[in-house]
């Protein structure tokens, strides 16, 4: 009998699934593990983790990881890469970590063209603290700190990171992907792989913004949450590749 499904070897054998039902972290980390396997880089990869729900990456991936204070993952990843240029280094951050408290570190790593790879999960809210308004909250979106919905007057506009990072000369690959359907998941995996590939090629920063669900704080079922990603989020955050130096 042919085996068609197995756990990637970049996954820990004893992991326990700790995310909420319907949360996309599970799919994102699974894709990361598959890509690490396929590129054969698991044993030379170091992860700079972050703060928020993404912090649980330690529990899943079978790679060396360093904790970063909230927002500082890109600085820590820079330090790791400058100390060990032969290693593969990536960050795994939420939108609050990457685009709010860590915006300076994120943008400057891109400007410098650090040979690292960054993943930002965008679920339009601060998930771990219970669903507050953040830098990526959509116009009109209700959160615990935008009780009547995000408006121009009090909150301004959401940050579109995949486009911003793509503008940096040091960025070699920037894309926005979603995990709401099989075709999108397949595209996401390709983007994740390219974001690592530019690091391996030494051409610059690889960045993927991953649109993802937060059913608990959105007060939705997993199905409703994925419909929101597909129907609402992609209007504010269009999917696509915003920079790809591998094609030049």
């Amino acid at each position, binding site marked *: 009998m042919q085996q068609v499904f197995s756990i990637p070897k970049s996954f820990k054998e004893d992991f326990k699934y700790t995310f909420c039902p319907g949360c996309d972290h599970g799919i994102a980390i699974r894709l990361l593990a598959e890509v690490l396997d396929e590129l054969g880089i698991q044993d030379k990869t170091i992860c700079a*983790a972050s703060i928020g729900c993404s912090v649980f990456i330690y529990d899943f991936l079978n790679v060396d*990881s360093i*904790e*970063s204070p909230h927002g500082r993952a890109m600085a*820590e990843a820079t*330090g*790791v890469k*400058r100390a060990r240029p032969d*290693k593969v280094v990536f960050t795994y951050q939420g939108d609050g970590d990457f685009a709010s408290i860590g915006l300076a570190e994120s943008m*400057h790593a891109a400007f410098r063209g650090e040979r690292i790879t960054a993943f930002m999960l965008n679920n339009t809210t601060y998930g771990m603290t219970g669903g507050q308004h953040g830098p990526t909250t959509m116009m009109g979106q209700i959160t615990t700190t935008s009780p009547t919905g995000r408006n121009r007057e009090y909150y301004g506009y959401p940050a579109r990171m995949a486009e911003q990072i793509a503008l940096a000369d040091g960025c070699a690959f920037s894309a926005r992907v979603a995990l709401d359907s099989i075709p999108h998941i397949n595209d996401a995996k390709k983007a994740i792989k390219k974001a690592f590939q530019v690091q391996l090629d030494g051409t610059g920063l690889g960045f993927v913004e991953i649109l993802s669900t937060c059913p608990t704080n959105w007060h939705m079922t997993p199905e409703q949450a994925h419909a929101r990603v597909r129907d609402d989020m992609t209007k504010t955050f269009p999917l696509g590749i915003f920079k790809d130096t591998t094609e030049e």
Partner: protein
Amino acid sequence: MNSSEKVLIKGNYAIAQAAVNAGCQCYFGYPITPQTEIGEYLSGKMQELKRGYVCAESELAAINMVIGAVSTGVKAMTSSSSCAVSLMQEALSYAASDELPVVLVNVMRAGPGLGYIYPAQGDYNQAVYGGGNGDYKIIVLAPSTVQECIDYTYRAFYLAHKYRNPVILLADGLLGQMMEPASFGEYPYPEIDNSSWALTGAKNRASRAIYSCARDEKKQIEHIKNLFKKFDLISQNETSWEEFKTEDADIILTAFGSMTRNIKAAMNVLREKGIKAGCFRPITLSPFPNNRIEELAKEGKDFIVVEMNMGQMFKDVKYAINGAAKAELINRPCGEWLSVEDIVSSVEKFMEKNYAASI
């Protein structure tokens, strides 16, 4: 500059070259007076040696780059000054909890707030007690000469790696900007094997994660207790100080860092005037030489603490004396260093007030 030859060199350059000699593989920093020469010097030197250098976007980023680098087992350092070192306190708390060998040089200027670029010693509390959250301890070394800037930079790297604990080299603007003859010699310490914990990729071994979040009350308690057990060991092994003519002294002048220079001179003037003065100077501000101060106090020797702040080390000296002798503070918050004359006249007043009958 890797020999016993004496060179005339500025404190900041001495620290920078000593870091190079110590094998510092990466330097990350952001400019701030009066320590900017460290980053200027290392920007060229590290590139020449093909080592890591980033002119970071902020002090927050700089010290977190150091955390990233040292987590892979290499030696790395940042340097800054007072108000900007405040920005690094979060990372120091993380590094202490994560047991990472971060080396931070603070060339102090005046505070609080922006303060100004006058030299001062106002960051004693921040360095010794920590400005970050939670229970943690940092090793703090205080040089008083350019030669010691070199020697203690070597020691800072050694202790950081030996104990896997952050170390602060607490210098000040006077020392950073001053030129003195000094020699570099060779880095005198053995290399520490980091292979049991460093993040180098999970090749032929289980993966490692370095983090401070135990997510388990019992583990968290045990972790904090272990950090303090380690610091007890550091206290036992590494507490260091210098003393001069304390044996027959009635009063002991106490200072740290570059103020040590003036209390030594004041001691000599006082002795010429017939006052039996001695000097005591902690080299490690953390761990602090409590026991030795207590011993001297119990012999009936009074302490006069001279420092360029509002009495930060003074409290620790009083705590160590524990009522066994008198303690007096001679201080100024920042700016022109207290002169030998200032110190001598203050000591004379102290003697008059307390020993009028016996003089």
